[in-house]
């Protein structure tokens, strides 16, 4: 699927009635890695949730290819822009069931390719998804988003729960996804990581 251009115009997000971020303007184009960097608890995850309409921004607009996200079908939007949570949740069943979840006719070949794109061996297909290591689960979560043929991925602190050895390959994967033409938005509290990964950085802080 062609990578959508994601834009926010003056977006403000709140959680539990408390405003966290305001006036956020950012833009993610195809093949680009954009990092949103800032301290923990500032509302970066809430911002990502707004981009796929799991939350609604309290001000501003989210545009996808120039269309207001609030007017797009939320399910189609979420297939087009994959969100990988900070602590990805594996659904019950094996890895294959996770990759194929919600797809009407999942082709075996597509599932295998998605797994390979994240650097995981095909043998992993039959493993119980809830028994994977943190690093494996992080990759399966990315592969699971890829099976929907998205144009962009939103990654929330993709390495925060991983040790250094597991984090480096995930960073390489992020760059690889952008080289495959996807727009990638990474949220991180780690300035050095933002520096290493991103073509562009957006710094956020408490209002």
């Amino acid at each position, binding site marked *: 699927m062609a990578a959508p251009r994601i834009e926010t115009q003056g977006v403000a997000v709140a959680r539990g009635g408390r405003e966290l971020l305001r006036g956020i303007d950012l833009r993610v184009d195809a093949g680009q890695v954009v990092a949103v960097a800032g301290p923990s608890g500032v509302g970066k995850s809430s911002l990502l949730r707004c981009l796929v*309409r*799991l939350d*609604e921004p309290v001000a501003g607009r989210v545009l996808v290819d120039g269309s207001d996200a609030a007017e797009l079908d939320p*399910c189609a939007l*979420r*297939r087009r822009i994959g969100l990988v*949570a900070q602590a990805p949740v594996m659904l019950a069943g094996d890895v294959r069931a996770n990759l194929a*979840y*919600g797809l009407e006719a999942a082709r075996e070949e597509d599932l295998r390719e998605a797994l390979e794109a994240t650097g995981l061996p095909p043998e992993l297909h039959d493993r119980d998804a809830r028994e994977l290591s943190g690093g494996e689960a992080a990759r399966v979560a990315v592969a699971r988003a890829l099976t*929907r043929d998205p144009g962009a991925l939103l990654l929330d602190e993709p390495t925060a729960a991983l040790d250094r050895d597991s984090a480096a390959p995930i960073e390489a994967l992020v760059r690889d996804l952008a080289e495959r033409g996807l727009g990638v938005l990474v949220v991180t509290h780690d300035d050095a990581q933002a520096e290493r990964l991103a073509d562009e950085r957006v710094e956020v802080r408490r209002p």
Partner: protein
Amino acid sequence: MTQVAVAGGLVVVAAVLSRIGRLGVERELVVAAVRAAVQLAAVGALIALVFEYAGLAAVFVALMLATATFTAGRRLAGVPDATLRSGLAIAAGTATGLGPLLVTGAFDTTPRELVPVAGILTGGAMVAASVTGRRLAEQAADELAVIETRLTLGVRVREALAPAVRRAAVTGLIPVIDQTKNVGLVTLPGTFVGLVLGGASPAEAARVQLVVLLSLLAVQVVAALAVARLVVAGLTAPGERVVPPTRPGPSRTAGSRPRWRRRP
């Protein structure tokens, strides 16, 4: 009177055990017992009149539906418009059973037959709606991360909640299924016992009991599915989002102290 005293003593035992087991339902057990005593005494005094006058019987049936609705609605606390949703589910379930039984003449529309049958069916619908709805609301709160993961993969709220609906409805229906399977082997239900004590032949009592039990299966399946549908709708926000209910029920018994806090 000795019978009631012994049974009352058992309620005290249950309340003490609830305290020791930290279930936190002592108060509810005692309130339930006192209410049962008062209500049965009142019904005992009124039932002769209710059987006599059709108008009074209609009021009585309406009162049963309203009470069932508020009882189930309280169990769904945290779900928006819980009482309305419970009432619709209970009415749908009760009508499913009562309609065909009355239309075909299986039971008479005289108060003497209508009131007890409507009561049994409404009670069944209430239990199925309470248990299914509450279990579903609890799962929506406990498993929000899983449900939102499914949503991010592009499915609708209804599909994201489908496994929780299935589990909740099965939990809500286990009692009626087991009761029907084991009738006569483990339990002798009230209708059967009442009819035999009232002078009916055991064969006649068994026939009526069978009709009630089989109807209850349909009543409870409809009530469980209806409440699940209505709770899912209540938890769905525009944009295919889930608004989890505020957690129903107390998390800690009143007066207990967190272990980590220093003793004064």
